[in-house]
């Protein structure tokens, strides 16, 4: 009965009122969401920008010293918990060198519909740097290893050998033939890792006091602010569903034969 009322209200966009903020829980979360989205977006750009070239290089030239050191560093990267990376960066760049700020978002400007962005001010970028590097640091090694392993497997297949035999340029073989086929499993894992990424935003935002939804959630937990906790979990659930749908659509874009490919892989 109570649950029925909750679902009914939720469908109308009413997730209850936060005990602490005395405001509708959904409004509180939507207000903090831009900060988290900007952080995740910036981290994702870093993750893709670093792991794709590194992973491909490590697969194409497995015995090169750069590949070996990248693989060595990646196992170190996996072994350092994300909050420890954050603490280390804060100590180095904020406490010792005093170059970068260690908490908050800095100056923000209104963008659209109440979206306060830190991406328009230099101060905002300075504040964004350490948290996004921290958030990226845990995913980059994972993706380097994944891309390398998948790429090695693809490079060993008959159609890549055939492409070599046709005398195609190496760049074309690596990027068009091999990389496209590496992408499918990488996208799958990326979708799965999103859940972990949400948990890591909570950790990163806590370390850097980044005023996003992760920090908000943890504060709600310590304040036992039940409506806010429920609203957060619901919003995270919606984000999950939307991204997983997007991942499925991406499949089709990357590989038009997606159904055949899935049967072949099983």
């Amino acid at each position, binding site marked *: 009965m109570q649950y029925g009322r909750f679902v009914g209200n939720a469908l109308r966009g009413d997730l209850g009122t936060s005990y602490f903020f005395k405001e509708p829980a959904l409004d509180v979360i939507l207000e903090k969401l831009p900060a988290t989205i900007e952080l995740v977006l910036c981290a994702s750009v870093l993750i893709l920008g670093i792991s794709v070239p590194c992973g491909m290089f490590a697969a194409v030239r497995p015995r090169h010293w750069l590949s070996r050191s990248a693989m060595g560093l990646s196992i170190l990267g996996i*072994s350092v918990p994300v909050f420890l990376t954050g603490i280390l960066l804060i100590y180095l760049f904020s406490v010792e060198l005093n170059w970068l700020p260690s908490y908050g978002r800095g100056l923000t400007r209104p963008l659209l519909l109440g979206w306060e962005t830190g991406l328009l001010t230099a101060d905002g970028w300075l504040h964004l740097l350490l948290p996004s590097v921290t958030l990226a640091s845990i995913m980059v090694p994972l993706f380097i290893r994944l891309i390398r392993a998948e790429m090695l497997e693809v490079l060993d297949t008959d159609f890549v050998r055939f492409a070599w035999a046709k005398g195609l340029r190496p760049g074309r073989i690596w990027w068009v033939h091999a990389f496209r086929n590496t992408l499918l499993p990488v996208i799958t894992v990326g979708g799965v890792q999103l859940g972990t990424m949400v948990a890591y935003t909570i*950790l990163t935002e806590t370390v850097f006091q980044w005023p996003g939804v992760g920090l908000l959630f943890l504060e709600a937990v310590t304040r036992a602010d039940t409506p806010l906790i429920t609203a957060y979990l619901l919003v995270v659930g919606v984000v999950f569903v939307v991204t997983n749908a997007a991942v499925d659509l991406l499949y089709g874009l990357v590989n038009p034969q997606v159904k055949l490919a899935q049967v072949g892989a099983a």
Partner: protein
Amino acid sequence: MKAASSLSGAASALAQDKVALVSLAILLTLIAMALLAPWIAPQNPYDPAAIDVLDAELPPAWVAGSDMRFLLGTDTQGRDLLSTILYGLRASLTIGLGAVALQAMLGVLIGTFAGYFGGRLDAALMRLADVQLSFSTLMVAIVLLALLQGLFSTEWYHRYALVSLILVIGVAEWPQYARTVRASALAERKKEYIEAARVLGFGPLRIMFRHLLPNCLSPILVISTLQVANAIIAEAALSFLGLGMPITKPSLGALISSGFETLFSGAWWISALPGLALVLLILAVNLLGDWLRDTLNPRHYRG
């Protein structure tokens, strides 16, 4: 390098791989230190009588202003940091190993049943595993522990923090084992020795656990190392968020968290030294796991 096919082959291959050998040595040393903590630690950090708050935040012995009684300095509450790290290592390892033991028990049991019987049981169990896998472990753990903390008194929570951490991390990750065991079991059950055991009239339970399971051991071993590393990281993260071990009985994560507050006043060692111990522990486990996977996996990547 040719992949060793059996565990005995792995033992002799270990002697040839320096990285794996060093990681094993580090891991064994850390485990020994954790086990012997009550005897080798200079101070009992759980005993309030042995602690003097006036000793708080003393730096390690090689930094000016230190006290020779405390080799690695003291934490925010005046506890000897070396002793606290030793006891913290104990807590982290207990939770990591305990959680993985629970995961393995649940996962192996479910995986063997699913793989051996197949059919509808298999389909149902594997859908259940998919559901569990779609929740991120850390996320589930954060929510569950937050609920526990909200439902029960702080005192109760502090007393049972260790057990609840093991339960939460243990239950959330069973599909990893179930899927691995099921995959091997599916391949093994079609082989002749299973057929032979069936012809001899052995019951399904005996075949599953005496014949099938021993032949699925090597993948279990490989994921176990990675799972231990993940469980230790998860515990540290939860304790850092204040949802894990209480500061009166700190694990390495809780110690790092308590040191984070004093980082800005210059007391770096309270976070850094337990952090170093934690990274060393996880790195050793990960390196061993990597080596184990390369050695036991027939689909070995040369590289």
